């Protein structure tokens, strides 16, 4: 009888070991609810780091509070689990202090769009070279299911038992409006796609905004669920030109979950470049807006 057991797994294990993304994890097991989309995001992030060959010690991750805020604890890098809503300023501080570091800001929807919402326009217009991972599960998870800035209208939550009365924010639209130079939306279940976008985002010189849609498996069983995301998932059309701002805006207005790279302006100078005296309005498309 032929031995057939884990041969598939065995190959995969070797493959995974070769890939080396494990080097970007800490020994701590993530504490998110099983099935949480954040696992997917995390997985794609370490894979992107691996793909780019980043050195652990040269990665700094600043996060806020909330489920997403726990992220740095699970990533082998210099991590800073900060206070609610402030991952962007802290990440910018790190980047401003240390041009040589790769800096991630990580936060949830409440973190980045709610309490820390004021920082988003400014990081976008300043174009400081950090990568912002917005883990958007459209709910306040760690405080047990209250309405967040992206909770769909009329969804029943623990803070709005009669349904959410607030119109949700549109993060991608916002980022585009604020002038972010790299804007993408990802789907937490699509590791390959995320990895691809993350790699581009991290390489982008300037602020990259990554809106990552993830279900909250514990507090939203109705609206943004794995099943619904899987079924409605649409990729950005292949004909879309990421440098086309107007097309990006149009897509961002589309209520359907479109995932992919919306907008990328590689020519825009980062804050640091601007500081270095390369200020020239002609170079920047954003000045047109």
């Amino acid at each position, binding site marked *: 009888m032929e031995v057939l057991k884990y041969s598939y797994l065995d190959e995969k294990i070797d493959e995974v070991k070769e890939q080396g993304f494990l080097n970007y994890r800490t020994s701590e097991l993530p504490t998110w609810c099983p099935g949480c989309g954040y696992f997917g995001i995390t997985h794609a992030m370490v894979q992107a780091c691996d793909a780019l060959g980043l050195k652990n010690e040269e990665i700094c991750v600043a996060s806020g509070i909330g489920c997403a805020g726990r992220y740095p604890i699970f990533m082998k890098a210099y991590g800073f*689990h*900060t206070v609610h809503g402030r991952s962007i*300023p802290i990440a*910018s501080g790190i980047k*401003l202090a240390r041009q040589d570091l790769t800096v991630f800001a990580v936060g949830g929807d409440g973190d980045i769009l709610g309490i820390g919402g004021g*920082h988003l*326009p*400014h990081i976008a217009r300043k174009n400081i070279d950090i990568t912002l991972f917005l883990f958007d599960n459209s709910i306040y998870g760690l405080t047990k299911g209250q309405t967040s800035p992206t909770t769909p209208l009329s969804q029943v939550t623990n803070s709005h038992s009669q349904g959410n009365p607030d119109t949700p924010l549109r993060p991608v639209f916002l980022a585009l409006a604020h002038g972010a130079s790299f804007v993408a939306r990802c789907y937490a279940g699509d590791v390959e796609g995320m990895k691809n976008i993350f790699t581009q985002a991290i390489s982008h010189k300037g602020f990259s905004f990554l809106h990552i849609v993830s279900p909250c498996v514990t507090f939203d069983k109705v609206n943004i669920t794995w099943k619904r995301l899987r079924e409605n998932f649409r990729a950005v059309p292949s004909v879309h030109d990421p440098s086309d701002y107007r097309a990006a805006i149009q897509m961002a207005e589309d209520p359907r979950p479109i995932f992919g790279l919306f907008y990328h302006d590689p020519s825009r100078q980062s804050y640091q470049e601007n500081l270095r005296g390369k200020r020239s309005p002609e170079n920047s498309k954003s000045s047109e807006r």
Partner: protein
Amino acid sequence: MTNVDIVIEICGSAGEGTISAGEILSRFMSSQGFEIMSFDSYPSEIRGFGKCVAHSRISNRKILSPGKYADILIALKDAHSISQLPSLRETGIVIYDNKPPNYLEEDKSIAGWIEPGMISYGVPLLELAQKAAGNSRGRNMVAIGALAALFQIDDEAMKASIRSRYAKKKQIVIDSNLNSFQEGFEWSKKNITKIDPYTFRNVRLKKSNKSRAIINGNQAVAQAALDSGLHLYAGYPITPATKIMEILSKELPKKGGIMIQTEDEIAAIGNVVGAGFAGKRAMTATSGPGFSLMTELANLAVMAEVPAVIINSQRGGPSTGVPTKTEQSDLNIALSGGSGDSPRIVIAPTTVEECYLGVSLALYLAEKYQTLVVVLLDFFLSNSIRNIPMPEPINKKWLKGNIAPTKTELKDYKRFKNTESGISPRAIPGTPGGMFVTTGLEHSEQGKPQYDRETHHQMTRKRFRKIQNAINEAPKPQWRGPKKDISVGVIAWGSTAGSAQEAVIKAQKEGIKAALMSSMLISPLPADSFRKFSKACQKILVPELNYSGQFANYLAPYLNRPIERLNMVTGLPMSAEDILDKIREMAN
């Protein structure tokens, strides 16, 4: 040769150049070899009708306090000046515009309020300004010119000073200012008969002033930051700290640093904490309302053991309060603002010199002790221009404070190792093998969130313990006056210390055995020194510019004795006279 000690106040509306006139005067006088102490008080409105007062004390001897009463009041705006009159000495001099464009009612003209014993000189400020430059803007220069004429100030030297002040401006600006000055000077010389005793002529001055700097507290702060290797300044404009940002905006990039103006104070401290985490020196400056916003992230710096320096130039509070008045009412929030048991180092310079020293110390202590350092200035100290000796070069040790982990320590790296001193070696991002997570959650030695009672207890102790050693690194508290049998011991902090010193000296002259104790380092408190002082005193007085006696309250448990308080919240610096009165009262 005579001695001089003259307080000049220029009072006008915002936008009339009141402050710049005061500045020009102070700088010039300082450059002439006078000791100066000047500060401005201005409204939060930029234009319009807010009252501005440029206050300068000019003397050939050491100045310890701004002086309670003005000797000379230049009234650029009558309405404001009337309200400023109470601060004029009974025998003071008022220079006013005697040809305003409109007729003023009796009670709306300063001249109508001048008390008997005061001297008033009317100068057609507006008319002369318009004559000199075609507009009203030069009124301040006209007034300065008049001043120079009246009190025998070297006009040529002053013109040179004005020229250099506006050196970077267009020629027309320089010319209009100079012309205005000239008009005022000449008109006054020609038309006014001097009947007062004040003069700046024939004053005994120190030989050389070359190694001296004429700076205010904010400038001292900025300079200290530049000299201490500041890499990042993040700030949001707020009176009275904005000046620091403005200076650093210009100077920091030259040194390879970055000044970033953020969207709010939260982002500012965020940037600072981020940069601190990244291993660079960073600071922000703000005032009470901004500091309130910062407390959360300031607390994070404490918990996460990240260096961060906040300069808080205090103003009247609470809330937006009195933005352009001085007060010492942020002590409580500086000491313990934020949630939880949040130990931090608090430094309160008492003079402009100490502003320089204090900030360089702050940056060092923050880096070494990996925590939040708050430098408490106040409106007065920030804006008080002093002529100070060039500061000593910063202690080299202070330029490099971080204790990096050794290779052995990196093998099993515990970022928050509970060492004997409480200081854990800190790996800077980029250090291979030193990866760690720091968090605002209570954490284990490795930095992993951990909430058990033992950890929280030990880590809280560690955070308190580690800053204790700062007492030995900061300058010793100053004890001025007799060492024993003190009848009234004054303990003062921040800018009030100068006035207190003056008061104590005056009291001693009156035969009262008074002494002063002040410390730049407020937290951790050099309690031993204070206790020693307290033991030598029959009575203890703590004068401070707040209503609740924050420092006295802070001190009370350390001294464990009754403390007399002198609390004033007038928006003005504490004057020596006020303290002296209290000392007298207590001595009897």
